[in-house]
């Protein structure tokens, strides 16, 4: 079970979004994201690295290469919170630096950590690997088989 963000943090829209460095999907959106990724040619797959867990998929890559599916969340880096990938469009109501230290202290795996406020998930992405069609396909099949 991935560590969860403590409830007291609230998020509000940023006036100036972060540059997107990753895209994440949770639940059905993760499945849609995986299908979208699997639809491209092998050469295009090489543009992304990623991590996948139960009901969650995070892809990292250049901003212009990140795929889109409805409901996906784009993540970027705030200079004040270098260990985190934060939603591009949302800012926490606490100091990003404090949030950075708090979440890193609670995480059991390495950084950076993708922060997904709506589902309350923290996804370590330090172990992200180049996307493999076989691995992603197997993950998708397993997710689809799970009720």
């Amino acid at each position, binding site marked *: 079970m991935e560590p969860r963000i403590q409830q007291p943090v609230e998020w509000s*829209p940023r006036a100036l979004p972060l540059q997107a460095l990753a895209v994440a999907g949770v639940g059905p959106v993760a499945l849609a994201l995986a299908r979208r990724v699997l639809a491209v040619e092998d050469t295009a797959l090489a543009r992304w690295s990623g991590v996948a867990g139960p009901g969650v998929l995070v892809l990292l890559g250049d901003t212009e290469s990140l795929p889109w599916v409805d409901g996906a969340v784009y993540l970027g880096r705030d200079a004040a919170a270098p260990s985190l990938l934060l939603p591009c469009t949302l800012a926490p109501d606490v100091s990003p630096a404090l949030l950075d230290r708090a979440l890193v202290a609670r995480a059991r795996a390495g950084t950076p950590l993708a922060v997904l406020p709506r589902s309350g998930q923290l996804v370590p992405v330090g172990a992200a690997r180049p996307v493999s069609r076989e691995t992603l396909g197997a993950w998708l099949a397993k997710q689809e088989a799970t009720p």
Partner: protein
Amino acid sequence: MSLSFQAAASSVREALTDAGQGLVEREAMVELVALCAVAGEHLLVIGPPGTAKSEAVRRTARALGGGCFEYLLGRFTEPSEIFGPVDLRKLREGVVETETAGMLPEAEVAFLDEVFLGSTAILNTLLGLLNERVFRRGHTRMHCPLRVCVGASNALPEDEALAAFADRFLARTFVESVPDTRLEDLLAGGASLARFAEARTASWEAVDVLARAAREADLGPVRPHLAHALRTLRAAGIGLSDRRMVKAQRLVSAAAALAGRTTPSVADLWTLIYVVPSKEGQALARDVLRELLAHSENSALAAAALEASAGPLARAQRIAQSGRSVLAGRPPDADSEALASWRLKLEGVAREMDAGFAPESLPEDLQTVREELRAALAQVAPAAAA
């Protein structure tokens, strides 16, 4: 029949849209030249060589009514190369007059590349021309129709005298080489330059109508907000000279006029960013004025407003325009390669929307375009894997 204010604003907006076609990362510069022309101020462009600065000015001049005097200054440039040669016939009569036909004193738009390399003789004469629109040399005294002079340089001058001269260029913009992500656009834009002859144009009459509206604009409602913004800049260590602060109002009024509004508002204060003289100062100004810049909006100067403020409304407007443009360019279903490429562009716009706006703060206009994009993406499947 005189041109109405709304007709003038509309014709200039259309002309600017066409002038910016094919240019990459220079759309804001095209708009700034027009803004300065309406305001009666001058623009300084700082950036590396080969960044399409002259092309942007040339196009804007053509779009607004035609005619642009341009010259690359050097250490050994003679005044006669800029202002015109001495009239030899009159010289024989003992009168020192300058023949100005086709030269800077008769231009409505001027582009001076490497402007700070000009000699003292050139820059001193330029000073009067820029400030008072009067050309003085020998016995020649003439009023000049110059609306805007665009100076370009690789860097801001460090010499004090040159810095004082640079201060005559109220607006500043800093350009970079085209980023990797837009290289395809750059190549396509270069290939389309030959078709520019079909672009729509406005007229100097339209510019005059807008300039008059700008001069007559009631700045009263916006002045408290402007004063607050200036105090905020001062508190952040960005000190503008008294002259620059006062003249900034001209850009505010001109921005409103170009957008078809007769009363400037906080939506026009993004122009203040361009009055900050250094790149670092502009970046800091964007940060400390963030809340105010969130109100930025200008349908005629969308790129310049966006670049100045990166504000939500300006960003939304630009993304919406981009989305509609891509949606309108749908290729035939039979052309699977073109269709796949089109789909990628749609996805790019959708990504920009979702990476730029939280769902709860998505502007209404953008929401409409997003729904159309989503429907189009659902209809066209991604290219099949090999």
